[in-house]
């Protein structure tokens, strides 16, 4: 279970996120929706220790605040970052190895290649030479290599074809059934609300609405502001 309380994120003198409280249970998918610059990515980075923050971040009751990012990954947090950030001059398999932190590497690798058959075809190809959709699959697979309790997906559908978006949505459903907590930050509110159980709406670093995703998707104000309806 992921619990955030009193989380604030700052960049120099600018406060990007202020006093956020958020929970996501085991086997639950939670969306963070909001416009560009609302603070979604900042929250994910703060959870992984990649942004200057205050407040509390707990995973299964363990306080992560103050720990470096590599220690947080060891504690079960993984991120597929916005823009993919694969290692461009490494092969698919080498990228997967970089996400591996322990256990049976060949078996885990096989799991990922089964989950993403396209990566098996590209296993020895340099990641930098793959398409955006393939790189996104690789970024998610690389994050899953650490067998996380909490998987954070930052704008995973940005600029991708509808078929890939559908695959990512199906993947979130699959990961939930395996007991994983999924935290999804998306500008594509329609997809995010369809793929998750609950959602938080962010505006300029503050949570302005929260509730079941289906209920938020039916809310006229949310529909006008984020779904363009």
């Amino acid at each position, binding site marked *: 279970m992921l619990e955030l309380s009193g989380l604030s994120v700052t960049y120099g003198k600018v406060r990007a996120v202020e006093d956020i409280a958020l929970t996501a249970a085991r086997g639950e998918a939670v969306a963070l929706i909001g416009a560009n610059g609302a603070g979604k990515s900042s929250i994910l980075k703060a959870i*992984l220790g*990649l942004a200057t923050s205050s407040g509390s971040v707990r995973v299964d009751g363990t306080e992560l605040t103050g720990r*470096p*990012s*590599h220690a*947080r*990954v*060891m504690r079960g947090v*993984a*991120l597929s*970052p916005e823009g993919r*950030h*694969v*290692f*461009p*001059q*490494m092969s698919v398999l*080498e990228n997967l*190895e*970089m*996400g591996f*932190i322990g256990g049976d590497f060949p078996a885990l690798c096989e799991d990922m290649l089964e989950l993403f058959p396209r990566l098996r075809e590209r296993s020895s190809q340099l990641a930098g030479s793959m398409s955006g959709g393939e790189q996104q699959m690789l970024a998610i697979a*690389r*994050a899953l290599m*650490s067998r996380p309790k909490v998987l954070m997906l930052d704008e995973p559908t940005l600029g991708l074809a509808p078929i890939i978006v559908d695959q990512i949505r199906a993947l979130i459903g699959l990961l939930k059934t395996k007991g994983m907590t999924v935290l999804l930050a998306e500008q594509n509110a329609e997809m995010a609300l369809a793929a998750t159980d609950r959602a938080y709406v962010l505006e300029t670093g503050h949570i302005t609405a929260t509730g079941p995703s289906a209920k938020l998707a039916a809310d006229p104000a949310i529909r006008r502001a984020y779904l363009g309806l």
Partner: protein
Amino acid sequence: MLELLLQQAVNGLTQGMAYALVALGLTMIFGVLHIINFSHGELYMLGGLMAVVATTMLGLPYGLALVLAVVAVVAIAALVDLVAVRPVLPTKDGPSTVLLSTFAVSLLLHQSVLSTWGPNPSRVEGLAGSLSLGPIVITNHRLLVLVSGVVILLAIEYVLRRTLVGRRIRAVAQSEFAAQVVGIDVARIRTLTFLGAAAIAAIAGALIAPVSLFTPSMGQHAIITAFVVVVIGGMGNATGAVVCGLLLGLLEALASAFMPQDMGTAVIYALLLIFLLIRPQGLFAGRAR
């Protein structure tokens, strides 16, 4: 004439191997830490000094002197990392400030050795004997430098491509952010790279000291030449550093055969200027890390 050229080529390749090893360390540090370690040349000089101390003062065999040089220089480099790199790097304009802090360390090391050891060249006993290949004579020690250099370069290539720690070093060089995201201990990788580069510099210094004599100023010449090599080869590019290091050594030696003494060095600086004007990204820019 041909004999002279061939002999100079052998001599140049020997010196070029030392340049390549120093430049390789410098470029590895730049690629992974994104800093210019100005004290790197003095670590090379200290490698030479340790070889002198071990062989002439302690009477140790040359092989043991090489080991002592590496251990001592890595210990000093750890101190440099602790004092002049780690606390400075996270500050505002960290990489620029590290250039200055390591420059200060460079002056400190150079002046300390100069004031205690004196400016005169010191001889180091390397491998005795020589090998004749037709008109060319190669001393056994020059052969040792060349063979050791190749072995070191192959070992580095093996570590970077075939071991987990090597692949993690490459990962940090390709994207520090992505490396943090996947849980690589970036601080540990930085330290390993810094110390690994220092070890290579120490071996290079200890290897070349019997060829060109030890002087406290050998580090200053080495760092400037290594900068030229790194700029021409492409910042952060290992292949570029090795190829250009060897070529520069060769060019310097061949130029010295036809021009007044020290003009070979002038040719190198002229090359630097030309490359900065026409190809500032270096010859091997964009190649695999």
